[in-house]
């Protein structure tokens, strides 16, 4: 076999498959978390003001939410079983810890969301307004609870605690320590804020798009305002959370920090704005760096050294080229969001928000940024923890299933094809829905419109 083909063994293929499926998956739950919260706000506004525009906004974003939620569910089931099919080693060794966490996620979050989702989507004419609002609230709550458990599980893999190991198997010793492991709380907060921020940017971008074209103006304005209310406080808070997360990485995953910052030699660390890390030569090419600033950021002190990758055995070093850049992308977007938030505040103070076309254009371009950051951040976290799947305790290569590379190649190809079709269609319909916009929808008291599905109106083209 040629060297290139040798690289694609069952472990690598399984990693690619997992990375591929989870990249798609993370988009939808994140959007669902954000939109569910947004729906709660819109429903409150509608119930209190009885203004038709809020009703239309509510129905419009519910449609978007339904699309996103559905795609999140189906991609999620794939992941749940993929742990077993491709990572049975991890499951056999750590199943007693991650299994109950997933079980609680299903018990407390998935069932909650799934049950109330039916009423949220279809129950307008069947239940009271109050009951419907409670359903919306429950779905939003469900999404946050879901994030709690999954972040607990992933954080345990990153900073394991509260367990004992006997004969290579991980047994739970202290569940509180397992769940509230060192990195959990900050990563949970970081992920939740990321979801709300990313969604807010999408909403802002959509609103800005309508305003630029002079469509749906009475609805676009509150949409934009609400999105900014979310963005302005969260953008700086997210950077702070990121900083704290970085401190935890410094303490518990020093090799990951070194890779993220392309730090090869231990010493006072500069802030590298640009570099091409070279794993085999263990150095960086074309480096542009600001001295000492790296130490300031990660150690909160200009003189404290940071460990370099060379302190770790070659087999224990994550891929610096990838991790350095994914981290730059995520952090860069974080600061860009802060900048946008500041500009927005300035424009609002000058009452020029809705008329600044250049800013509205910027917002439409910036709408996917949050999701790019989410993916970049996760790639940093997960590729940065290699070669471990349980940090410091179990290597990824030892966790893979005894399945042939051929089979994984086959399943990966199937996933590529089906995902391309399904998510391609999904994005297309999302795009179309947004393009159609928040058109008129009959209120629940309206007379039955005969055989047509009641809200099929929202799928008709705009008048």
């Amino acid at each position, binding site marked *: 076999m040629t060297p290139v083909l040798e690289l694609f063994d069952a472990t690598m293929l399984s990693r690619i498959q997992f990375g591929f499926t989870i990249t798609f998956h993370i988009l939808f739950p994140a959007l669902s978390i954000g939109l569910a919260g947004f729906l709660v706000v819109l429903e409150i506004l509608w119930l209190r003001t009885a203004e038709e525009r809020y009703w239309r906004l509510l*129905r419009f974003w*519910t449609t978007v939410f*339904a699309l996103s939620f*559905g795609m999140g*569910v*189906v991609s999620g*089931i*794939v992941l*749940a*079983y*993929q742990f*077993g*099919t491709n990572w*049975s*080693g991890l*499951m*056999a060794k750590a*199943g*007693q*810890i*991650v*299994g*109950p966490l*997933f*079980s*609680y996620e*299903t*018990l*407390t979050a*998935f*069932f909650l969301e*799934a*049950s109330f*989702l*039916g*009423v949220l*989507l*279809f*129950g307008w*004419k*069947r239940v009271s307004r109050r009951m419907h609002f409670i359903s919306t609230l429950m779905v939003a709550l469900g999404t946050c609870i879901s994030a709690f458990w999954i972040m607990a599980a992933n954080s345990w893999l990153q900073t394991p605690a509260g367990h004992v190991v006997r004969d290579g198997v991980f*047994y*739970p010793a202290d569940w509180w320590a397992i769940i509230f492991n060192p990195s959990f709380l900050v990563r949970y907060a970081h992920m939740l804020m990321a979801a709300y921020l990313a969604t807010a940017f999408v909403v802002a971008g959509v609103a800005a798009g309508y305003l630029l074209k002079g469509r749906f103006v009475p609805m676009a304005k509150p949409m934009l305002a609400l999105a900014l209310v979310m963005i302005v406080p969260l953008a700086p808070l997210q950077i702070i959370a990121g900083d704290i997360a970085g401190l935890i990485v410094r303490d518990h995953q020093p090799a990951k920090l070194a890779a993220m910052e392309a730090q090869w030699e231990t010493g006072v660390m500069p802030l590298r704005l640009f570099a091409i890390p070279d794993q085999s030569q263990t150095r960086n090419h074309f480096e542009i760096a600001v001295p000492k600033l790296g130490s300031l950021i990660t150690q909160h002190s200009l003189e404290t050294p940071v460990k370099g990758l060379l302190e770790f055995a070659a087999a224990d070093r994550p891929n610096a080229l990838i991790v350095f850049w994914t981290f730059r992308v995520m952090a860069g977007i974080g600061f860009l969001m802060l900048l946008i938030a500041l500009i927005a505040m300035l424009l609002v103070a000058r009452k020029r928000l809705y008329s600044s076309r250049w800013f509205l254009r910027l917002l439409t371009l910036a709408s996917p940024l949050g999701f790019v950051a989410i993916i970049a951040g996760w790639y940093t976290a997960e590729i940065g923890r290699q070669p471990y799947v349980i940090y410091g305790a179990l290597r990824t290569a030892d966790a893979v*299933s*005894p*399945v*042939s590379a051929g*089979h994984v190649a086959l*399943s990966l190809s199937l996933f590529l094809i*089906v995902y391309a079709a*399904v998510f391609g*269609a999904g994005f297309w*319909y999302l795009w179309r829905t947004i393009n159609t916009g928040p058109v008129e929808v009959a209120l629940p008291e309206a007379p039955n419109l005969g*055989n*047509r*599905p*009641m*809200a*099929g109106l929202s*799928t008709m083209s705009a008048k």
Partner: protein
Amino acid sequence: MAFSVAFAVGMYVVLDGFDLGVGILFPFADDHAQRDQMMNSIAPFWDGNETWLVFGGAVLLSAFPAAFAVILPAVYLPIIVMLLGLMVRGVAFEFRFKHHPRTRIWDIAFTAGSMTATFAQGVVLGAFVQGIAVDKGQYAGGAWDWLTPFSVVTGLALLCGYALLGNTWLFWRSHGKLQQKAKTWMPVLLVAMLSAIGAISIWTPLMSPAIASRWFDFPRAFAFTPVPVLTLACAWGAYKGLRKTASPVPFTLCIGLFFLGYSGLAISIFPQLPPPSMTLFDAAASPESQRFLLPGIVILVPLILAHTWYNYRVFHVKGEHDEGYGH
């Protein structure tokens, strides 16, 4: 904990069974309006139903991690195919109404996804019953061990079973011409299901002397005779239940059929998990882990069941308002 896994899997089979079944029957509807009706009858429920599959997997992992780690790689391709089928079916709900101009593409996807997922589940079941090779706690068989005539037959059997269950659901919850159709299909599907059960019941003991001795050794055999008798009784009752329009009786009795089939399976292989070499007790998780999860299950599952029942009640009035994914 074993009961929890069995319960979760059982709930899944029955609940997702009927909505997959509706998907299987989709191509036999006369026209677009009937297809809409079929879909709307299951639209508010399918997500909750499918959640039991996630729950079953998660609990299996928590309670019997060694078994989870052995079984899933052993049935790698069928599981992957099942996941893809479920995925396509799941999005078809939403996408079908979005596609303009209306074509049949998502109808086809809905059916194809439902059928593929069902067949794959049946194959997994068959592969499980016929036994999984284990060595030193890891799956030790070949890549295609799961594919045998037996597992293909169990795949087809599950197609019949879910179609029947879906049909009884439609009989209960639809109206007009569609309901009439459900009534006419019922005898055929009942016969198909009974034949499938019969075939598998004969084949399993032939396949494995251990199973044969479970069932046929006297005097044990007497203890198990209620199973086939009750099966026939349920089928007969379901048929009779057709007399009354929109009766839930056939649906309920078909659930009974599934339960009986399930117990038959349990009788055959208990306490092996998976057969033939590992048992429940080999594969079980430590008490610390079980103690953490079990209280949660005991408290939350009844709440979930209560809520699920509420959900079914809210949407009970049969699709008159034609709500569904046309939103």
